[in-house]
């Protein structure tokens, strides 16, 4: 068994080399950069070899028979139709092969499931359609959305190398550290998957599942949501930057600085034009996927904002919808996702864009006032 295991590894390594020569034609598991992914890679090679071996033996026999035992070459049919010895042999041999396969596989399962002694813990939340990252040890928190411009998807602009696999804010982790992931979902089930780490974990709303990885090599690794989560399931990639310890610390400091600047915005008062400009960006990143850039929504699925009662009626109700969402529909609560300044901006934008010429504006202070008790309600979700 051991030698088989090693041989499979050697062939796997050879495959890895030929794969880099054929980088454009991706046809095998991505080059692993964690122990678990490495083990999975070898396990797959081993089982592939076993399957190919059995296939050749069984269908070698069948094709021999197809050529030699055909009526057109004058072969007369024999009349045997059972043989207990043969039947026992071909029940027992596959069973033994399977036991041989089960043993290394079980070892990897146990290794994958051991999430003890992490160096740091990151909580990952799937949203329709973005990822939220919450660094529990370092107090960094942000959202990560698709960065590929709409024009590339629609075919009006050339597609760049990382088409659909690029995000505005990647997850950043230090190299060689055991990172425990707490994965959950906010609305529907998502699945956080980075092939190079050998990690795929469904994010289930209301539950937290944990998994782990330790990246061996500095670099940028890309993955995608792997569980159908609605319209833009194909457009919520994952990018993980593995960096050195120092770079990681510098990144944490930078992130905290940005967070402070954003918090400061919540205390300011803005002009309407300023809010509309900021709100348009927030709208494109958070609302346009469903309600569309033109505010018309998708009839029957996602309501229009252009001309809607919410966006042209009392502003307080409008703020409440954005803060609390509409339970039982795809309209999520943005209380935990957006700052007061961003909510004020996006509400103002929606009330002044397209045909919605209400002319009124919401200020961060209005959002904070509406939150009142709502902040407390939203807090547990954000604190997880």
């Amino acid at each position, binding site marked *: 068994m051991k030698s088989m295991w090693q041989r499979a590894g050697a062939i796997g390594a050879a495959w890895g080399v030929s794969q880099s020569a054929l980088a454009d034609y991706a046809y095998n598991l991505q080059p692993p950069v964690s122990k*678990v992914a490495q*083990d999975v890679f070898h396990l797959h090679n081993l089982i592939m070899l076993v399957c190919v071996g059995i296939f050749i033996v069984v269908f070698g026999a069948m094709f021999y028979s197809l050529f030699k035992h*055909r009526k057109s070459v004058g072969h007369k049919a024999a009349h045997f139709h059972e043989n207990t010895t043969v*039947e026992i042999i071909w029940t027992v041999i596959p069973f033994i092969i399977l036991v041989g396969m089960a043993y290394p596989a079980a070892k990897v399962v146990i290794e994958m499931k051991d999430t003890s002694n992490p160096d740091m813990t990151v909580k990952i939340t799937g949203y329709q359609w973005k990822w939220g990252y919450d660094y529990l040890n370092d107090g960094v928190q942000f959202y990560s959305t698709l960065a590929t411009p709409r024009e590339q998807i629609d075919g009006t602009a050339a597609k760049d190398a990382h088409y659909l696999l690029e995000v505005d804010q990647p997850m950043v982790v230090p190299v060689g550290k055991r990172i425990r992931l707490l994965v959950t979902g906010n609305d529907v089930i998502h699945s956080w998957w980075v*092939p190079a780490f050998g*990690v795929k974990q469904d994010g*289930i709303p209301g*539950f937290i599942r944990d998994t782990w990885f330790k990246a061996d090599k500095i670099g940028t690794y890309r993955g995608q949501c792997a569980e159908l989560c609605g319209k833009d*399931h194909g457009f919520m990639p994952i990018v993980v930057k593995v960096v050195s310890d120092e770079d990681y610390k510098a990144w944490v400091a930078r992130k905290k600085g940005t967070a402070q600047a954003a918090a400061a915005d919540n205390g300011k008062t803005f002009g309407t034009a300023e809010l509309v400009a900021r709100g348009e960006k927030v709208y494109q990143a958070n609302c346009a996927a469903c309600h569309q850039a033109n505010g018309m929504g998708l009839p*029957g699925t996602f309501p229009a904002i252009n001309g809607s009662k919410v966006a042209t009626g009392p502003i307080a109700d409008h703020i409440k919808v954005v803060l609390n969402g509409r339970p039982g529909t795809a309209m999520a609560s943005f209380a935990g996702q957006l700052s007061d300044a961003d909510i004020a901006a996006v509400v103002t934008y929606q009330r002044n864009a397209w045909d919605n010429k209400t002319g009124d504006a919401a200020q961060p202070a209005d959002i904070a006032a509406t939150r009142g008790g709502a902040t407390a309600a939203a807090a547990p979700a954000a604190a997880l």
Partner: protein
Amino acid sequence: MSDAAHAHDDHGHHAHPAGIMRWLTTTNHKDIGSLYLWFSLIMLFTAGSMALLIRSELFEPGMQLMHPDFFNQLTTMHGLIMIFGVIMPAFTGFANWQVPLMIGAPDMAFPRMNNWSFWLLPVAGIMLLGSFWLPGGAVAGGWTMYPPLFIQGGVSYDLTILAVHIMGLSSIMGSINIITTILNMRAPGLTLMKMPMFVWTWLITAYLLIATMPVLAGAVTMLLTDRNFGTHFFNAAGGGDPVMFQHIFWFFGHPEVYILILPAFGIISQIIPTFARKPLFGYASMVYATASIAILSFTVWAHHMFAVGMPVAAQLFFMFSTMLIAVPTGVKVFNWVATMWKGSLTFETPMLFAIAFVCLFTIGGFSGLVLAMAPVDIQLQDTYYVVAHFHYVLVSGALFSIFAGIYFWLPKWTGHMYNETLGKVHFWLSVIGMNIVFFPMHFLGLAGMPRRIPDYALQFTEFNQIATVGAFIFGFSQLVFLYVVLKAIKGGAKASDRVWEGAEGLEWTLPSPAPYHTFETAPVVK
């Protein structure tokens, strides 16, 4: 034969309604069998067109033809219709035609219920397809209907739940009929262990259906009440659990996989001995293997859920039990090869499809074994590797066995031989096209392309283009099949009673075409 002719006269005084009323009111197993098969064929072209739309959108990166939401509607409906509208009705059609003929029974045990179980299907089909025109379009949450995504949708989601209920009712009634017929109406002397393999596999399949369809009905009913009546079975905020749905669904879903393949095993086990001119090797072990597959199928469901995150013990249990299924499945493949061994083989179209079935189904079995290894499955779950895997088992498995069975029994049903040359053209186009579509999907999955995405990263372009070309070859070659079938119905060389030189069994003692009423006096099997 005189029995059959006599039977026909006997029934002359029952005025058969003509035209549409004949088909609406028929209680004849042959009519109902044909209805099932026609329904299946129409649905095959419907859901197949959806597949071609999907493949067209995936021909190159970027969104060209449709909106992502419509893409999701297509993948969902393609899956639901292919499973519940094509493969299952086709096998039920075979059961209706063949089970009474093969066991020497005059008809099914409950002919009126038989009529009812067919005519429920078009109702469900119309509800499913009609939902494309409802506000928000058809269901887009995947054929597996996972909440909470499935809770979000519009009215078509409720309609789909209702359609699934109706199809489940139809299946349960069909199964009761098949079990009762097989257990009570066999010709004298035809003991259980003398039954043709097709009858055996359907008997076991019918039990699987009766055991699992109510489970599916329960799961979708909970979805319905969660959606409309304020329950929280699958909502964590109300004390429920979305993962519970997956456990219940796959407790149905995995036996369902065998519901879709056991009758295929039966058809293949009829065809290979016929064209090898040699009895089926290891008949008893085939029966036991089928039964063990059916029993084991209830213990493996959570291998569809390795990425959900389960305790180590559960992950290991489901991995081991899944790997264990390979043993009885292997026994079947070995038995088929041993049946061909030292036979006197000829290669008419049914045999060609049967041989392709054995080879290609085994590839699907092997990729299933790869997926059974939980750590490997974590990498491959929800990728194109899984799409490749289940299309190898369902297209080159279930669908090819259906083609094989149609070519095999069509002369008995119509009284005419089909055009052998065109049959072979259909075979080669299908087998080549099928492999061009689905083989590259293994590579796509390994390289990391998730399934159910309408647009993809650039490194997946080449294999997707190859797959799309293959899909059009495979799809359009089914028009050849349609032509061959229609031509054989209209005319062609007269088929003999036995049709095939190596054919054994009661159905081949009847004239071709089989008269409207057969075996009114039971034959005696020695």
